[in-house]
């Protein structure tokens, strides 16, 4: 794909890039909701770009692994990142706010969607955010938050506590922040 031309005043404007800005695509979520998005924003997803290039889009692109709520969020992200004149600093701020209020479940929906749609920047951001929330948390907090049941026997658990005793001191209390 030709690199997007960032020239602000129309000199040497790539005609293909211009077309992408005006052309719109329709994305269809797993629950049947349809969203319009400019092609230039949509192709920030490598997976969508490939579908457009292979011309298997045929007007509407079905995304059977992404639900409507998640797709709406992803589209907000794509639109911001395709916006003309948005500085890197603005985008960074946007990313910060975009993920900061998300509940854990939503973060996981978005990380799966970003992985499936191959949106590198979003994937990086959300992965980092999930990790940030897990930092210095106890085993119990992790199990509770992610609904994971321990399948260790009490003896195994005791054994691991002994083996890793050095790593257990000073973890955060289980207050969710």
């Amino acid at each position, binding site marked *: 794909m030709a690199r997007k031309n960032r020239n602000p005043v129309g000199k040497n404007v790539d005609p293909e890039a211009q077309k992408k800005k005006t052309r719109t695509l329709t994305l269809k979520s797993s629950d049947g909701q349809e969203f319009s998005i400019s092609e230039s924003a949509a192709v920030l997803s490598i997976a969508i770009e490939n579908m457009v290039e292979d011309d298997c889009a045929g007007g509407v692109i079905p995304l059977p692994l992404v639900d409507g709520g998640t797709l709406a969020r992803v589209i907000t992200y794509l639109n911001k990142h395709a916006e003309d004149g948005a500085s890197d600093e603005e985008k960074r701020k946007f990313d910060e706010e975009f993920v900061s209020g998300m509940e854990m479940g939503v973060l996981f929906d978005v990380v*799966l969607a970003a992985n499936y749609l191959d949106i590198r920047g979003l994937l990086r951001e959300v992965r980092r955010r999930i990790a940030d929330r897990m930092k210095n948390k106890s*085993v119990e907090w992790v199990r509770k938050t992610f609904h994971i049941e321990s399948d260790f026997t009490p003896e195994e658990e005791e054994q691991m506590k002994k083996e890793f005793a050095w790593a257990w001191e000073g973890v955060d209390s289980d207050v969710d922040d």
Partner: protein
Amino acid sequence: MNQEQLFTNLPSELIINILSRLPVRTIISCKCVCKSWLNLLDTPEFARSHLSISVPGLILYESLRHVEHFEIFEFEDEPDLERHELHYNSITKISSKEFINEDHPGLGIQGSANGLVCFRKIGQHPETVYICNPITRDYIQLPTPGTIWYYPTIVTYGFGASKISGQHKVVRIYHECRRDPDTHNLLVIPKSECRVYTLGTGSWRSIAPGPKLEYSCRSIGAFLNGNLHWLVTDLEGFARISCLDLETETFSTISPPALPESRRFLGGLTVLGDCLCICDNTSDDEIVIWVMKEYGVEKSWTKEFVISKLPDFAGESYEVVYPIKIFKDGDILMAWADFYLFYHSLKNRTTAQVDIPRLQTTYRMEAMLHTPTFLSLKSFAMENVCSF
């Protein structure tokens, strides 16, 4: 998403990627969450992913009155950090006693690469050399590398990993020296040898020792770009950098910057922010930090920082100073020989002791960057790995 299945829905490479970003101790906690996480976190894929993301922290070796120990720290590095609180970010502290069952083994750090640390018993001839992973808590004791030797013979070590094949190698350089009995100046090097121990092979082998140069018995190889580097003096008395390519196992020589001529040049060679760095502490009132901006390009040596010494430190100095890390807030962490660890703020031109109060009672300390890894030494063939 179904609240019951947050991580369960993710492909394993995505789980690995997320968990790789956690602090070391949280990763250990995660091993205890359930069996599938324990298995995932024990895979070589996880160790590789973690090492590629893992950022260098610090290994600090301390010799105190009754005990020796080493401690691994993670750094906090933000542009707007109020203060560095290293002591809150300790990952693990290991006493030598746990490790090799001696109160005062007198260890010295000989290098750190990919999360593995090379230790050697200082002052013991022939040397005992260990490779240790403080995170997986295992170590290897290498076979004895040579025979008994005495000063004025010089033995110097280095530890690193080759650039292409990624082999971990311990290098031992041995120079038999003859000195003028009055001036101690080096007269001749009748015999030199270099031996290499590749981790996983179980034995030392000899390689061509390179040009005859005067190594310092206290310096260790600075590891950068798959090469080891030592600040040396040639037989005419000029400072040089001896460079060993760990892939081809050939020596070459790099010129240092134009240093002021002095009979007692106090230079320390180290790696600072991915560049080769020479820290010159010869002057009575300032420390000069030279950086080789473009690796291997001698013209790119730049006088990067000049730091005025505090009155307490000014005057004739006898020790080498090593910068360790430049932080985003403009502070440099530095070691004054094996005595002190301090921060110098480039912004405010102030100097402060590191916030580990017990360091003031430490007899001897060594500090260098260390990138924690979950790569177990058990993954190397032919090695007798001990756990502690």
